[in-house]
């Protein structure tokens, strides 16, 4: 058989729900593993993405680190897929977009009681938040989108098998959903 396709996955400003849903393809995971192998992914614990055929990203872009990881994926993946509402629309994290970031930080770290001891964390180790949360396609070119919060295991399976078979992926009624 031909060489296995190499796939990387990651979650940016997401909840790993899409990854959980990915695992919902259940025993078909074994069939998938006949066709693909995993690079960077929570399944492998590889920390950095190498050259891949397909990259799958859940979650939007809310901070500087997200941008670095997204660029790493775009650079290394021939095909980049945004999966889930957050990656495609900004999703839940983007619900802060109508607020000023400064007010958010002030509210969380200065106004409300907490462990911050009256200052906004400024450790260089911490990635800075962007003023707004963005979907992936506003930062890099995205080749495909699998909508859903999360998309069902069946939808992910259908999408990937279409793609691997060289067809334009189509979800169709019942599999396409935004919630």
């Amino acid at each position, binding site marked *: 058989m031909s060489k296995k396709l190499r796939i990387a996955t990651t979650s940016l400003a997401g909840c790993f729900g899409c990854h959980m849903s990915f695992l919902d393809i259940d025993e078909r995971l074994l069939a998938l593993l006949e066709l693909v192998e995993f690079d960077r992914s929570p399944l492998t614990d590889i920390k950095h993405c190498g050259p891949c055929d397909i990259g799958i990203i859940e979650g939007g872009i809310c901070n500087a680190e997200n941008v670095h990881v997204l660029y790493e994926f775009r650079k290394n993946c021939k095909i980049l897929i*945004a999966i889930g*509402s957050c990656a*495609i*629309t*900004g*999703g*839940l994290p*983007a*619900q802060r*977009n*109508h607020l000023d970031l400064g007010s958010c930080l002030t509210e969380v770290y200065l106004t409300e009681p907490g462990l911050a001891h009256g200052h906004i964390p400024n450790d260089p180790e911490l990635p800075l938040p962007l003023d*707004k949360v*963005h*979907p992936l*396609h*506003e930062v890099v070119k*995205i080749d*495909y*989108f*699998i*909508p859903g*919060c999360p998309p069902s295991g069946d939808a992910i399976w259908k999408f990937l098998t279409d793609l691997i078979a060289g067809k334009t992926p*189509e*979800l*169709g*009624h*019942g599999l*396409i*959903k*935004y*919630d």
Partner: protein
Amino acid sequence: MSDTFQLDGASVPFEPGQTVMQAALAGGHYIPHLCYHPEFKPHGSCKVCTVKINGRTAASCTMPAEAGLNVESNIEEMNGLRRTLVQMLFAEGNHFCPSCEKSGNCTLQALGYDLEVHTAGFRHLYPDRPLDASHPDILLDFNRCILCELCVRASSEVDGKNVFALSGRGITKHLIVNSETGLLKDTDIALTDKAMHVCPVGVILPKRVGFSVPIGARRYDQRPISAQALDDAPRQADAPHSPDTGGSCPACEGTP
């Protein structure tokens, strides 16, 4: 014998005064639409129902039917256009489906499904549109408004109240309510108003109700909008679907 026009190769009869959309739906042919509603005067703003008529594009909901027209609707060129228009609406407002009470019963969402819209594509505008929760029984979430004016038309034409209107212009156009404070609590809206039940998206919602129908049993979980919209259109031959029977209008399903 009534006159006919051609729609995607089928012969569609029409009565004088009908628009292309009205005749098509009456004849059992679906043309995707958002701002059109069989009970109200068509106004043609969403443009999702755009078709090719004798080679030129026009909104089918406002275009008067004429004998011999050649109408093309279910062609890739028109469906591609519709896809972009739906994407524009998703990018314009704040449509966060996972937390929306109307999800599964939303016309915009169902259209997106039917047209295989996987992304808004455009840059999201993320407008700042504060909610109006002032009314004891009714919530307005303007984030989801697609400016179709169905509530404006329902409140004016059916309820005789004019609770809603549009203000602003261009991309700042927005829904307003009929009170000096600008708040819904100071209008005479009531839960029983027609305007409560026509919003195709999740702007006008009764309070303390939400997610009452489980996922899988919601309106568009069952059948795609292209199949359901025909049930709602007044039909010429068999007319069991009186527009006044509760829940049968294409937009108010799912909300009690």
